[in-house]
């Protein structure tokens, strides 16, 4: 361990530490609330409660033309036309107040502002119409039958949902991995006769000819991606959302992650829309809001290739209708199953405790400002929602296979190809580990058959030769040459992309499992390092664990309030699995157990992250004192540095190149105080905080070394050749 400071010292004394303290203060109370309000489901989740809704008695035509008598969200709701909703927004006291203020502040005539507001609302508004929904549902049925082998919905969760709606506004918060999420949610609601959600969508689609209209008619409303200081827009948007909440005609649906996660990991929740949506509760306009986190798990993500390119910095094509048609070739492929689970509905009133009363002294037309207490709870709720989404995932066997395959590619010499037998064995052991971490694995038949089916779905990425050898396929070749000027990051060499794209695609599926493994992995690595340093004491381990957790808090959902709970749980699980030794009597001292293979796999999972973060540190360290860099510059030079490492075989995991990962790294360094964030003329610039950054770099480096030897052992000159030469058969 470096003498510059222990991980715990680094973790403390930062902005984050203060926040954690705050969260810790709030924690006991909230823990209490959580225990009472969100009991864990009665039994373990099982696949048998999931039903394939494509597999139904009636034909699609009968299905889409069925009588539409949905279960109402709230009994008091009255159905409003689009024009009426717009009228309600415009005439709301809050909107009137805003217009008056803006008019007098900016000396703009009110009429101009009314007109502008009207335009904003027309641009924003949804126009849900059942004929379109039905027609669209018919087409979707046909498409889904073609590309999916089933859309499985947890019917127990549907029953639970039905029981908890009827009195209060409902917010659906699905995980967001694919554009298909939009359509699926409405499709499922239609199937189960639940009022169709109104969906908050980004403006990206509006420009797509026909598609914007189609989505609007299906119930999407559109929010600009950024509207800076446009107060009128902000007021219009929040009033629009709030009128939907208070009227309670439809469930509101939005993605708390803010955007599609390109990495298949959950993104850190965004709080803006959630805060706006909760305002009617906080100000006492509704007595409760029911939040329903929803997990949508895909066997294979439609956008998998696209995402890989995007993460490496190859620009994403702008959404266009012609692009959509081009993308229709995805219809020729198989994408396996989808699993949808509506998790335990959360009563915001019970979750928050009643916070309404202090606000009752303010008139409703004044904008509400979130108090620190509310802010703490909203952050908590947002994180809880994402965790619920994760906990209720259905993990595909392919994800586990991806972990095994990646581990193999990284650690074994070229001539040792993975065969089906080994793969099955290793997946089996990983499966039982995952299950002990609470995962529900999609394995309906015996493991071997299920695994083969799972691999078959991904045959464009993984090929199994006749002799049972499993290999990664190069998928990168078919793309058109990339204009270097358009690269978002560093202009990567062609050969880097050749290996990088499939590796990042593979990591996409590895990532699907990481919410299960991340805490145990961090604990494992911390234990190992602590033991190597001659300690192994629990509090020493905890300090190291805290550092890694803080470091990775922009990468994974590691809410501060849960750090102790997660730590204790991970230790228990790891002891059961034999990764940690259970037999020792001294409960304050930890040591490694017999299951070194799982320990290796777990630690290895952190490699791309630690490698990426370490490089980001080095890059920032090179910024001369007093100079600043933009995020983009930082990303570019870190990617360049990583590419060098990859080419010189000092690193062999291409996922470190991921721009998402590196962005998280910079943000994390910033919130740890190792990098200072400055705003100049609206541009965000970063400069190193040299002392702290050096400490962090040192500690990250120490951790990385522990992970790196596993691959370095098998790393010789050949290894580099293995990846680059084998591009055709990788």
């Amino acid at each position, binding site marked *: 361990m470096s003498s510059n400071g222990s991980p715990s010292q680094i973790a403390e004394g930062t902005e984050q530490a203060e926040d954690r303290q705050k969260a810790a203060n709030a924690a006991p109370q909230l823990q209490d609330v959580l225990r009472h309000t969100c009991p864990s489901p009665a039994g373990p989740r099982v696949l048998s409660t999931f039903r394939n809704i494509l597999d139904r008695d009636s034909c699609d035509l009968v299905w889409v033309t069925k009588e539409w008598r949905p279960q109402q969200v709230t009994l008091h709701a009255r159905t409003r036309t689009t024009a009426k909703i717009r009228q309600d927004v415009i005439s709301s006291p809050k909107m009137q107040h*805003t217009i008056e203020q803006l008019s007098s502040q900016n000396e703009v005539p009110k009429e101009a502002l009314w007109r502008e507001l009207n335009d904003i609302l027309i641009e924003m508004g949804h126009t849900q119409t059942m004929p379109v929904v039905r027609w669209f549902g018919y087409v979707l049925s046909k498409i889904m039958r073609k590309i999916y082998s089933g859309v499985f919905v947890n019917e127990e969760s549907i029953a639970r949902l039905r029981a908890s709606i009827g009195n209060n506004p409902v917010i659906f918060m699905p995980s967001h991995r694919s554009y298909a999420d939009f359509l699926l949610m409405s499709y499922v609601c239609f199937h189960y006769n639940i009022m169709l959600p109104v969906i908050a969508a980004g403006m990206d689609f509006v420009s797509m000819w026909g598609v914007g209209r189609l989505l609007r008619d299906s119930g999407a409303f559109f929010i600009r991606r950024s509207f*800076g200081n446009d*107060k009128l827009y*902000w007021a219009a948007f929040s009033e629009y959302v709030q009128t939907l909440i208070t009227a309670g005609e439809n469930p509101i649906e939005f993605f708390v992650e803010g955007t599609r996660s390109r990495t298949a990991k959950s993104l850190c929740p965004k709080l803006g829309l959630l805060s706006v949506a909760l305002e009617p509760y906080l100000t006492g306009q509704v007595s409760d809001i029911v939040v329903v986190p929803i997990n949508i798990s895909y066997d294979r993500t439609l956008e998998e290739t696209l995402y890989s390119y995007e993460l490496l910095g190859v620009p994403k094509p702008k959404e266009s209708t012609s692009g959509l048609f081009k993308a229709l070739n995805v219809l020729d492929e198989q994408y396996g199953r989808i699993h949808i689970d509506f998790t335990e509905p959360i009563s915001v009133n019970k979750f928050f405790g009643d916070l309404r009363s202090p606000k009752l002294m303010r008139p409703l037309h004044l*904008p509400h*400002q*979130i*108090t620190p207490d509310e802010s703490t709870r909203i952050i908590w709720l947002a994180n809880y929602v994402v965790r619920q989404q994760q906990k209720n995932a259905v993990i595909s066997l392919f994800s586990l296979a991806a972990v095994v395959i990646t581990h193999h590619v990284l650690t074994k010499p070229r001539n040792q190809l993975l065969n089906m037998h080994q793969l099955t064995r290793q997946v089996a052991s990983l499966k039982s580990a995952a299950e002990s971490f609470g995962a529900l694995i999609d394995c309906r038949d015996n493991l071997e058959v299920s695994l083969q089916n799972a691999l078959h779905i991904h045959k464009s990425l993984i090929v199994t030769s006749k002799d049972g050898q499993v290999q990664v396929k190069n998928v990168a070749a078919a793309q058109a040459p990339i204009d270097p000027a358009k690269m978002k990051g560093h202009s990567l060499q062609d050969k880097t992309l050749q290996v990088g794209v499939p590796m990042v695609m593979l990591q996409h599926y590895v990532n699907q499992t990481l919410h299960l493994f991340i805490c145990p992995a961090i604990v494992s690595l911390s234990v190992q390092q602590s033991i190597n340093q001659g300690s192994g004491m629990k509090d020493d381990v905890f300090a190291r664990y805290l550092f890694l957790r803080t470091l990775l808090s922009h990468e994974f959902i590691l809410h501060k309030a849960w750090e102790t709970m997660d730590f204790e749980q991970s230790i228990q699980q790891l002891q059961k699995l034999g990764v940690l030794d259970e037999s020792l009597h001294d409960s304050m001292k930890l040591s490694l157990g017999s299951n070194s293979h799982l320990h290796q796999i777990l630690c290895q999972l952190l490699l791309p992250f630690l490698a990426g973060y370490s490089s980001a540190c080095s890059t920032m360290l090179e910024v001369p004192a007093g100079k600043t860099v933009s995020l983009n510059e930082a990303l570019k030079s870190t990617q360049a540095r990583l590419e060098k490492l990859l080419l010189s075989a000092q690193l062999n995991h291409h996922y470190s190149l991921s721009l998402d990962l590196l962005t998280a790294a910079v943000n994390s360094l910033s919130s740890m105080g190792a990098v200072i964030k400055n705003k100049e003329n609206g541009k965000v610039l970063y400069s190193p905080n040299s002392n702290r950054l050096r400490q962090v770099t040192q500690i990250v480096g120490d951790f990385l070394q522990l992970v790196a030897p596993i691959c370095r052992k098998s790393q010789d000159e050949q290894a580099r050749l293995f990846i680059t030469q084998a591009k055709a058969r990788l």
Partner: protein
Amino acid sequence: MDTTGHGYESPPSVMRIKACASQEKNSGNSIITPERTVNTIPKKKQTALKWSGWGYNDTIVVCESNGNLYMTSDRYPHMKNKHVNQSVRLWLRDKLNMDLYDESKMVRSPVTPQMEISKPIVNEDFMKGLQSHNISYSMESDDRLFRGHGHTLDDIIHLRTGKIERVPDVVVWPGCHDDVVKIVNLATEHNVVIIPFGGGTNVTLALTCDPEEKRMIVSLDTSQMSRVLWVDKANMTACCESGIIGQDLERELSKHGVMSGHEPDSQEFSSLGGWVSTRASGMKKNQYGNIEDLVVHIRFVTPSGVMEKQSLGPRISSGPDFNHIILGSEGTLGVITEVIIKVRPVPEVRDFASYVFPEFQYGVDFMREVALKRAQPASLRLIDNEQYRMGQIYKDSLGIFGSILDSIKMFYLHSIAGYAEDKLCVVIAVFEGDKMDVHLQKTRIKKMTEKYRGLDAGNENGKRGYTLTFSIAYIRDACIDYGVLAESFETSVPWDRCANLCRSVKNTISRECKARGITHHETSCRVTQVYDAGACVYFYFAFHRGIMDFHKALKVYDEIEEVARDEVIACGGNISHHHGIGKKRQKWLPKQVSPLGVNLYRAVKQHIDPKNIFASGNLVDMKSSL
């Protein structure tokens, strides 16, 4: 313009939520920070207002030797081109030995105080605290003097004769509720006296400092807390800081198309907090309510913490209404910082009317009938004969044609209709509402006047009578120059005792004057408010001091007023309708509210303010028991 402080949230982000949190921390509970109101009266009030009398420095009533009467500024447009005719002049000379044509009596007050103000008592720790909180204050003599008095006759005479024994030692100007909390906490910690100061228009000696007080006295001037924090049109309420004065309040509210409708005579200078703490009444209370009807919510800072109800609902049944401990507390329990009041839309139409009745009794009977039918317009007042005649000094100067017309009118009134000039009385009415409403109200009132021999005297007379109210206090100051001491006092009384009370009090005063050898005096009264169960009666008593010096005259005045008050109470009236108790009427309080009532107040005081920080000495003299 500051874009973050105006209640908007910028687009969603974690950072923004954090930013909000710190912002709120800084500004306490006052989350919204609307712009500061532009106060009509500056912070240094004496730069705009008279130091020794009522109203603006630039505004004095002048009567020239030819009988022309006017005010020296344009602030009161209705006070232009008045003419005191011979008959009024003679009547006044006869009654009050006051010759308005005698210009030599006209004295214009000196602009700067000619008085030695004692050195302030300074509590160093308190002052250090004040400085550390960055709260504005002043120890200058004129600032202190200005806040050491109200507008009681005693105050004015003392100012004019340079006999003010004790004034506050420092004037502080909190800018918001939180500042007040800090000041009150500091004062409690360091045992310093606080006397809240609003507009300084009381007539009850409420601001007079106790000469025996050895602690530092802080005058807490709320004038810089004058924002309208919000206007809620959905519920027709407005949240205002307590220091806003009446005219500023109406101006700010009118920007939102609403008004409070609270119009006490002192409306130009008195403050919202002052109204609440004295249980004020406005001229248009029939339509808009008295202050206790207007108040929805009060924020009250006391030495033992902040008291406020947690509800904006229109009514609560939750035991005694503790707002009523604040209403009328006269600065003895704490500081009112923010008040949520009801507001009404600015009326479409405002109209006036006046009616002449042959005798006072007819007028009272008419008023009673109006109250019975609950047909009262926004304002309705009955002016007795003496006041009607005194009001004749306000007659417009008329051209020859006007004079002739006037004479014809008078001839008709006196000779044909048979209304004796020394008996008739006048009713003045103000109507507000939409056209239809006003029309209906007017028709209804007209109908009722006929029953009591009332004659329509036109809306111009009504308008004049109503708006002249604002100049009465100026006249009072002018009278002093002519050797006439004048003061008002008021009461409320059940209907069946109203006329008798008016008569008896006048008789009593007359008797008392005679006993003291006062040859020139006049008492008039008006019935200014109608209620279901009674009315408010307002007396003016004036006498010429003759050879008495001011202090002797003041003593005599006080003696007579005391006897008059005894008579008021004996006739079924009470201690005060809206002026309050202050230090002037404490004597009658036990009798009025029962000794147990006084003890109850003492217990409240003891609990809220055990150190007697709010030691203005109003209501009950705490020294006698502490």
